[in-house]
């Protein structure tokens, strides 16, 4: 067997515990299992470090099993493991035994955004003082570049409340699932990742800004989607979290 065929057979046997060892391998099943365990346990540990709230919500046994199934069906595509695990939210959404926790995949999207923001490109947030005194007409013509680390996760479930109590509280607070959806901003303006709640409709607003719309146009788009959209409050939260990398035109 050539090296290519040998390695293909080894990969199959490493991922599928029922596959036979390729011919030529000298060593017991116990020895081969060291490699199977190295692969599974190291990748489960990577997922556990990226999805600590998912793990707390489902418990360690369920998490280990779900992560193991995920790894077998979505093995890493690159040695840069920073990129590994982004498909876990979609995997959880389709996972039959997790169907009773419909908010799980949105929590996973939040946790992935937090991981991605941690490693995203750096950018210094702009000085806001120069737009502070602009009159509304001029303000509405501004365009905003989102910070490279910024992401929004909007959910019909109270995902920020669930994430917060499971991240910070020794005893989790009960959250009523019908208490309303939440939209979450994840951004890292400096070294620490900021996680903040945004008013309803802000996801449409930010998507419009990110696609190049002026502030005025983005606000109209958001209001058309969400009649209760509150521009002032949304902008205040985005500014406070330092969610932008640039504001143009630079001189008004």
């Amino acid at each position, binding site marked *: *067997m*050539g*090296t*290519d065929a*040998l*390695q*293909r057979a*080894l*990969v199959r046997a*490493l*991922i599928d515990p029922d596959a036979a060892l390729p*011919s*030529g*391998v*000298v*060593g*017991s099943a*116990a*020895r*081969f*299992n*060291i*490699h199977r365990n*190295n*692969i599974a346990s*190291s*990748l489960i540990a*990577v997922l556990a470090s990226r999805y600590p709230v998912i793990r707390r919500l489902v418990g360690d046994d369920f998490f280990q099993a779900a992560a193991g199934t995920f790894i077998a069906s979505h*093995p*890493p*595509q*690159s*040695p*840069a*493991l*920073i990129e590994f695990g982004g498909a876990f939210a979609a995997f959880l959404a389709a996972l039959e035994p997790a169907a009773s926790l419909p908010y799980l995949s949105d929590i996973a999207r939040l946790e992935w955004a937090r991981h991605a*923001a*941690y*490693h*995203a*490109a*750096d950018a210094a947030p702009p000085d806001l003082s120069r737009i502070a005194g602009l009159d509304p007409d001029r303000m509405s013509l501004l365009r905003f570049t989102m910070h*490279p*680390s910024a992401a929004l996760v909007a959910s019909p479930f109270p995902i920020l409340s669930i994430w917060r109590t499971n991240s910070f509280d020794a005893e989790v607070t009960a959250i009523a699932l019908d208490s309303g959806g939440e939209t979450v901003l994840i951004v*890292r303006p400096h*070294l620490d990742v900021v996680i903040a709640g945004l008013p309803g409709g802000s996801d449409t607003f930010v998507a419009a800004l990110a696609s190049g719309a002026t502030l005025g146009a983005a606000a109209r788009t958001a209001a058309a989607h969400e009649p209760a959209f509150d521009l002032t409050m949304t902008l205040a939260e985005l500014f406070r979290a330092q969610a932008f990398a640039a504001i143009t035109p630079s001189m008004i």
Partner: protein
Amino acid sequence: MIASPIPLRAGVGLKHEHYDAILADRPDIGWFEVHPENYMGAGGPPHHMLSRIRRDYPLSLHGVGLSIGGAEPLDRDHLGRLATLVRRYQPGLFSEHLAWSSHETTYLNDLLPLPYTAETLSLVSSHVDEVQETLDRRILIENPSTYLRFAQDEMSEIDFLEELARRTGCGLLLDVNNVYVSAANHGFDPTSYVDGFPAEHVGEIHLAGHARLAADDPAGPLLIDAHDRAVHPAVWDLYIRFVTRAGARPTLVEWDYDIPAWSVLFDEAMAAERILDGH
């Protein structure tokens, strides 16, 4: 930034758990080593901390994901990311493993063994050539810890590594713990291996702790290259034996799981440094 050569001193594998202690205390340690794969994000705290540490200490990059022993062409994207990190951090050394970890589109996150044959030797040699050309530097290749062997083997690991170094001009990284682990698992004498290792090619030494797995194996308990505890006394003895014969080499203590307090890891490095000072 200009490259700082790795000194003939002891260093440690840099863990993010120790960033704060290192930046607060500026310990008198010779150098640090990192896995470049952990610094492949665009920005954020990992680069921030590594840049600060790099200002004060020489740095070595020790790759774990290039799959040099893989049957397929090297992953050009990954090689490009490595080249970017080499330009950014100007490491004194760059090393990788005699192992493979990728096939087709799957990356397995383990260092997998390969048979030692004429075919794999020419494969690994061409990969090492490509890496050295891309990174524009000599690299070091590390002897692996292994649990399996192959019926296809045509030569010993030492002969394979020595011929690899001769063909490509690469250096070797002697991992003494890996020698001890493989020797126990395959029933050969680790002393003979260390005595036969081609010292003239060795540019770096690794030390680490290993675990004993009471596995259901006919050969008895297996040793695992676990990097989760202090260096075993028998590994220290092999290390002393090698530097007594070959002279001092930059020496790294690796401790990647169950990571101890900074002072514990620092003391392990100082134990290695006292041995280096005597040679």
